[in-house]
């Protein structure tokens, strides 16, 4: 019964397609709605472009995603306490034995540090307070619920 088969196929693919649309819409909106997230300042927004312009992601990660030559930067600002922004700015402006000095100008350094501060407030990585369930999932402090 090839006719039936074709209808079945359409039904299966149709369902999949519709679920894909709904799922995507959910991911674009409510699924990633994090009410606690800070507003991005203009400075931070420029900093985001600086981060991309120098391709910092080749060596660094946010939330563990990126290149592995350098450390994760999600919480680099709070890592150094009150001096966070100054320390980060020094790293970026001067480089170290392992991190190259990429030649950012002072405004760029300031902007990218503002961006790192913004990222710092979006969550904690790696999670410090979490709970592993018996079926293998992880609940962590930043979870929206």
């Amino acid at each position, binding site marked *: 019964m090839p006719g039936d088969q074709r209808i079945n196929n359409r039904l299966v693919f149709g369902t999949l397609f519709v679920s894909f649309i709904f799922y995507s819409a959910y991911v674009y909106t409510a699924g990633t709605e994090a009410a606690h997230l800070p507003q991005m300042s203009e400075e931070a927004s420029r900093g985001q472009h600086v981060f991309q312009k120098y391709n910092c992601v080749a060596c660094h990660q946010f939330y563990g995603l990126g290149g592995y030559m350098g450390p994760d930067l999600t919480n680099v600002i709070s890592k150094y306490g009150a001096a966070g922004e100054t320390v980060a700015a020094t790293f970026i402006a001067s480089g170290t034995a392992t991190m190259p000095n990429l030649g950012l100008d002072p405004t760029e350094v300031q902007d990218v540090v503002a961006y790192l501060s913004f990222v710092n407030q979006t969550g904690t990585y790696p999670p410090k307070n979490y709970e592993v369930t018996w079926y293998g999932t*992880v609940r962590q402090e930043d979870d929206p619920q």
Partner: protein
Amino acid sequence: MIARDRDLVGLNFIRLGMLSLGVGMFFGVIGGFQFLFPEFLRELLFTKTRPIHVSMVVSWIFLVAIGGIYFYLPRQQKLKLWSPNAARIHFWVFIVTGLAILFSYLTGQFGGREYFEFPAALSIPIFLTWILFGVNYFNTVRQQKGPWPVYYWMWGTGVVFFFITFCEAYLWLIPYFRESMVREIIVQWKSYGALTGSWNMLVYGTAIYVATRIAGNQDAARSKMAYSLYFLGLFNLIFGWAHHTYLVPSQTWIRLFAYAVSMTELFILGKILWDWRSSLSEYQKNRHCNAYRFMFAADIWVFINLVLALIISVPAFNLITHGTHITVAHAMGSTIGINSMILLSSVFYIIREELPQNVHASCSKQVMTGFWVANISLAVFFLALVMAGLGRGLYDGASFQEMATQIRPFMMVFAVSGITLMLGFWVVLWNAFRLIGEIITPVSSEQTQPELA
């Protein structure tokens, strides 16, 4: 057999892909050493070598998969390409854009997004020619009478999802996405789910195509099981990507769902184990000796990589492995072990079919040497990454440098095995490149003794 002019575009794509891999691996090796010795070629920053490496080796996967499709459809499936000219335009635009991307990397102009590290504008020609490719593909396979074999579905799915990848990967340009960190990352990784999913569809479709051609029957492409596995793959492509972002604070629902979906791949694992023995005996027959061996290697790497993928998809384990070199082992293990082996199998299958009198086209000592060097190196390479990843994941101190020093021996093994891996591949690629060249411009006289039966 002399290739007709209209078949050449597929072969040209394949040759370009091989070139891209050969050069791309070289930059990978440089990058590996820069990782260990930051002073090494400092002018050529790691910010440049990494994207050059990644873009070129990913291009290899796409170019050879696309080349196979452009070649197989008209040449073997007797489906006239809807527009050979569109295919030629596709080829030339790819070359020009590829060169522009290389130029932008070398001159330090970046888009600065992982995987699409080139300036966003350079995506436009790729995007447009992809549409051309899609139109060409679907109009060509439409001529097929009766139900499509599963590989037509897979290729078509790959075409469609790469398109979706592109659209999603650039949503960050809209402030609504860009200004929310969580949304930005999640959508970016959703798009990469479609990216890897799309090239896997193109490559696995090629694998099934080549396997059915070699076996001489269509079971693997027409059975209920074949369609079910395809469907499972598609389902995972759409809903399984969120295992990349378990630790980004999105809605729990998304993560739980991805976890459940990822585990359905256990079924595929079971299926592989079930088929193990029969596939082993299949591989004994030897007309397509080169093609067989690469496919066989891919089979083993599928198994190894699937086990690793399943482990790191469990959130509790992901907590340790995420953001470590285990992710790199996962990525490189599958792109080299699975995708590249399948694509080489496809290349050698074409060579054997097109050069029936050339004894080297079936089995040659050089290719076999390269094959073994590459596979053994890959095993070492893979293990070194897993060990380095465990070192990083289990380190609980606060010093990045201390952790880096601890895993340094593993990274050393990784970098050195990277060299032998590259050398092994180079030998294979060099042979394949030459032989494909003989298909394009046939040489008449050269009839040599068999080196290896």
